[in-house]
C-alpha cells in the first residue's frame, strides 16, 4: 500500500514538474530565438549591400524565415528527442549494470548497432536537407521578384511564363522535400533496425540460457532420484 501511495505521489509530482519544465523550456526557446533574430538583424545592417540585389535579398529573407524555423525546430525537439532519451539511456544503462551485468553487456551492443545505419544514411540526409533549403530560398526569391515586378509582368503579359517558372521551382521543391523526408525517416528507421536485430540476438541468448537451465535442473533431479533409489 505504501508503495502504491508513493508511486501515486511520484506521478503527481513528476507530472506537475514536467508541465512547469515544458513551460520554462518553451520560454527559454522563445527568448533564445528573440536574441538570435536581433543578432541576425544587427548582422544585416553590418553587411555591405551586394550588387546581386534580389537574389541576396531572398537569401537574407530566408535566414529570417526558413533558417530560423529550422533552428526553432531543432531547439524545441532537443528535449524530447535528444536530452530526455540521453538521460533515459544513461540512467537505464547504469541500473541495468547494477541489476544484471551480463544482460547489460549484451544490451550495450545496441549502441554501435544503432549508430551504424544513421552513419551511412545521415550524410545523404544532410545534403538533401541543404538542397531543400536552397530550393525553398529559390521559391521565395521567385515570389519576391513577382511581387516587386507585378506591374511589369502584367504589362508585358509574362504571367504564363512566370507561372511556368514558379511551378518548375515548386516541382523541384516537392522532389527535394520527398527526398529529405524519406532520408530523415531512414536515419531513424536504420537505428531501429539495429535495435531490433539486437533484440532477436538477446531473445536467442535468453532461450539458450533457459534451455541450459532446464537441462541442468533435469539432470540434477535425475541424479537426486538415482541417489534416493540406491539408498
Amino acid at each position, binding site marked *: 500500500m505504501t508503495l502504491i501511495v508513493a508511486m501515486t505521489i511520484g506521478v503527481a509530482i513528476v507530472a506537475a514538474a514536467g508541465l512547469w519544465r515544458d513551460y*520554462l523550456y518553451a520560454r527559454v526557446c522563445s527568448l533564445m530565438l528573440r536574441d538570435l533574430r536581433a543578432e541576425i538583424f544587427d548582422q544585416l545592417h553590418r553587411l555591405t549591400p551586394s550588387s546581386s540585389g534580389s537574389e541576396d535579398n531572398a537569401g537574407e529573407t530566408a535566414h529570417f524565415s526558413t533558417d530560423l524555423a529550422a533552428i526553432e525546430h531543432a531547439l524545441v525537439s532537443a*528535449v524530447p528527442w535528444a536530452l530526455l532519451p540521453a538521460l533515459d539511456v544513461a*540512467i537505464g544503462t547504469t541500473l541495468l549494470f547494477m541489476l544484471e551485468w551480463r544482460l547489460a553487456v549484451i544490451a550495450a551492443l545496441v549502441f554501435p548497432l544503432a549508430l551504424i545505419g544513421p552513419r551511412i544514411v545521415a550524410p545523404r540526409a544532410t545534403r538533401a536537407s541543404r538542397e531543400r533549403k536552397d530550393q525553398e530560398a529559390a521559391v521565395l526569391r521567385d515570389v519576391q521578384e513577382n511581387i516587386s515586378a507585378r506591374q511589369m509582368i502584367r504589362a508585358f503579359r509574362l504571367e504564363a511564363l512566370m507561372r511556368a517558372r514558379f511551378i518548375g521551382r515548386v516541382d523541384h521543391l516537392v522532389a527535394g522535400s520527398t527526398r529529405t523526408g524519406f532520408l530523415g525517416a531512414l536515419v531513424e528507421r536504420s537505428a531501429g533496425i539495429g535495435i531490433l536485430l539486437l533484440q532477436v540476438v538477446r531473445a536467442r541468448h535468453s532461450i539458450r540460457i533457459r534451455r541450459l537451465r532446464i537441462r541442468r535442473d533435469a539432470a540434477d533431479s535425475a541424479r537426486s532420484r538415482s541417489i534416493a533409489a540406491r539408498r
Partner: protein
Amino acid sequence: MTLGPIVRFVARSAAWVRPYRGLAAVIALGLILEAAFTASVPLAFRMLIARLRRAIPIC
C-alpha cells in the same frame, strides 16, 4: 554520421543559453527528475509484484 555539425550546433546553443543559465539549470533538474522517475517505475512495479507474491502465495 559526422559529429562535427552536431558538436558545433551544441556549442553555439550553449552560447545562446548562457544568458538564461538559471532557467536552464531548473530545466535540467526537471529533466533529471523525470528521467529518474521513468527509470524507477519498472523497479517499483517489480517490488510491488514481489510483495504481492509474498502476500498472496497463489500469484
